């Protein structure tokens, strides 16, 4: 899958099978066509040597909670390290402005002051380096809540009390365009009104609000009707950071030779379409970077019993 193809998938296109497969990858694919007993034996061997952990999930939760608490305590205790909310803040004086909020304000207000530009540029560089959508899974407070409620959803699904209703993934691109157009035409930052990220961040810092009712409604919808619906099909913030992540060196890398195609990674993934490459026969190369829509949450890295998915920094890993 080319980089361009991965970006197309992020905007909602269905992943396609590769047309060109490298000789090495072809060889691995054919080597995997062995008898079932042999395949199981090797798989068991790999499993015994790689323990499934919650390493990355725990690190990520710690970072997410600490980042949000830093906002809260900067205000409550007046320590002034990170003032403001997720939409815009100052880290020891330096402006940081959320890319999607900045975009909404720029489109609605049509006037950009220097501080707005500086804050936006800083955050752009920051997340271009750190992986774009890693903002979602490592910082966004709604992501964490949704992750917890997803557990409840999966529990109910396994008891056959609810079922997951998928939407077309292209809806998120539609939302992105429509909210941008609405901002330009109406002159109001319409998306900010319903953004659970902004609502939760402000509630954590400035105290509870009625707006939390909307967030709860979203969570209930996700539990009873559609798994992770907001993050998967609606949130334009995710797409904005995804676009930034398209140029990021931090990503998860797939290693064909270590994979047993069991599909556990796709079951835990928020955006399983980025893991299309792990399906048997799909990988065109020995190593494949996972696409820009990946939130770098590390659940697949944690769950993979044979170490086929690992965090990678382009360029840096080869240097080390």
């Amino acid at each position, binding site marked *: 899958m080319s980089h361009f193809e991965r970006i197309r998938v992020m905007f909602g296109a269905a992943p396609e099978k590769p047309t060109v497969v490298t000789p090495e990858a072809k060889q691995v*694919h054919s080597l*995997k*066509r*062995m008898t*079932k007993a042999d*395949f199981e034996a090797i798989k068991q061997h790999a499993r015994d040597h790689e323990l499934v952990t919650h390493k990355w999930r725990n690190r990520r939760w710690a970072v997410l909670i600490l980042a949000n608490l830093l906002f809260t305590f900067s205000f409550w205790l007046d320590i002034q390290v990170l*003032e*403001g*909310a997720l*939409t*815009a803040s*100052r880290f020891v004086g330096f*402006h940081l*402005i*959320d890319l999607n*909020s900045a975009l909404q*304000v720029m489109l*609605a*207000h049509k*006037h950009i*002051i220097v*501080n*707005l530009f500086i*804050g936006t540029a800083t955050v752009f560089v920051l997340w271009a380096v750190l992986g774009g959508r890693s903002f979602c899974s490592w910082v966004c407070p709604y992501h964490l809540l949704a992750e917890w409620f997803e557990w409840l959803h999966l529990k109910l699904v396994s008891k056959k009390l609810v*079922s997951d209703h*998928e*939407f*077309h993934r292209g*809806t998120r691109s*539609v*939302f992105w365009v*429509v*909210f941008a157009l*609405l901002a330009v035409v*109406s*002159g*109001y*930052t*319409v998306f*900010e*009104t*319903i953004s659970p990220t*902004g*609502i939760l961040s*402000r509630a954590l810092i*400035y105290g509870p*609000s*009625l*707006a939390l*009712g909307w967030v709860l409604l979203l969570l209930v919808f996700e539990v009873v009707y559609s798994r992770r*619906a907001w993050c998967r*099909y609606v949130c334009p913030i995710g797409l904005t950071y995804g676009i930034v992540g398209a140029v990021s060196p931090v990503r998860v890398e797939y290693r064909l030779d270590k994979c047993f195609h069991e*599909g556990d990674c*796709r*079951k835990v993934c928020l955006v*399983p379409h980025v893991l299309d490459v792990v*399906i*048997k*026969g*799909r990988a065109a190369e020995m190593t494949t970077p996972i696409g820009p829509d990946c939130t770098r949450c590390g659940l697949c890295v944690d769950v993979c019993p044979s170490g086929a998915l690992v965090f990678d920094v382009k360029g840096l890993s080869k240097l080390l």
Partner: protein
Amino acid sequence: MNDKRETEAASEAAPLSPVGEAAPVVNNRRARAPVRKQANRRKFIRSAVMIGGVLGLAMLGYIPVASARKSRLRPPGALEERDFLSSCIKCGQCVQVCPVAAIKLDDIDQGFGVGVPYIDAREQACDFSCDAVQCILACPTGSLTYTKPPALEIRAGMPLAQAPVLKAKENDPEPTLNLSERIGVARLAHPESCLAVQGKGFSGQARGADFRGHLRYVAVDRWKPVPVRDHPYQRDLCDLCVTECPIRDAIHMKETIAADGSKQYRPEVLEQCVGCGVCEMICPVEPAAIVVDQRQPWSA
């Protein structure tokens, strides 16, 4: 759902999958084709409905904005209401720097105004305790601004004739506030209940023992505002709105001689009024006799 995808995937990858497993799945897939078509159509309709639903709910936010007869009193330096709502990034940095916590953030019942700062002057007015209008300094988007960019509207009666002199800074080298436009203007809304108009004095806590508002009293501590309840008054003629006004020459007590020769008093708002709302907060009668009309221009 995921399981279904896995089988589907396995069938599509048939040429490379382990021998013997793929064949029945392929048959199954053919048999399921019309079912899948129907499922896709359902998914498409579901997606369209969801888009409509989310956008509809988001646009509901326009109702409170459009139907608001009176907008909120905004922090000093706020752009005109429409520009203010479009440029505010809803981060609350203005809230964090205010030394008297005068600035609050609106909730979702205000629609598009959710997360946007406002001041409830009766509860806690802006008394410029920060000396420098720090909320403007904190604003990252220019929603609150010292000087408007040329393209933005300046209504007649909104610019202040001179830079307002802050009483607390009168002896400083630079006694003025960096504020070029008013945020509103005070008005004696209920002269009949005004103690001065009735010729009455006032003694005690201006707003009672339970009032939580703070005010800077330079005589007490220039750098630390104290609760109003901790600063009782003793006045023969109530003139709290005049004496507690933080701006020089923004309000005065007008004295007139009635036909019967008795003296009549009435607080009179002057052109230097910036609309901070301290008079509204400190007014001891209920409801306040003097109020701030937000976004009102000055008219003589």
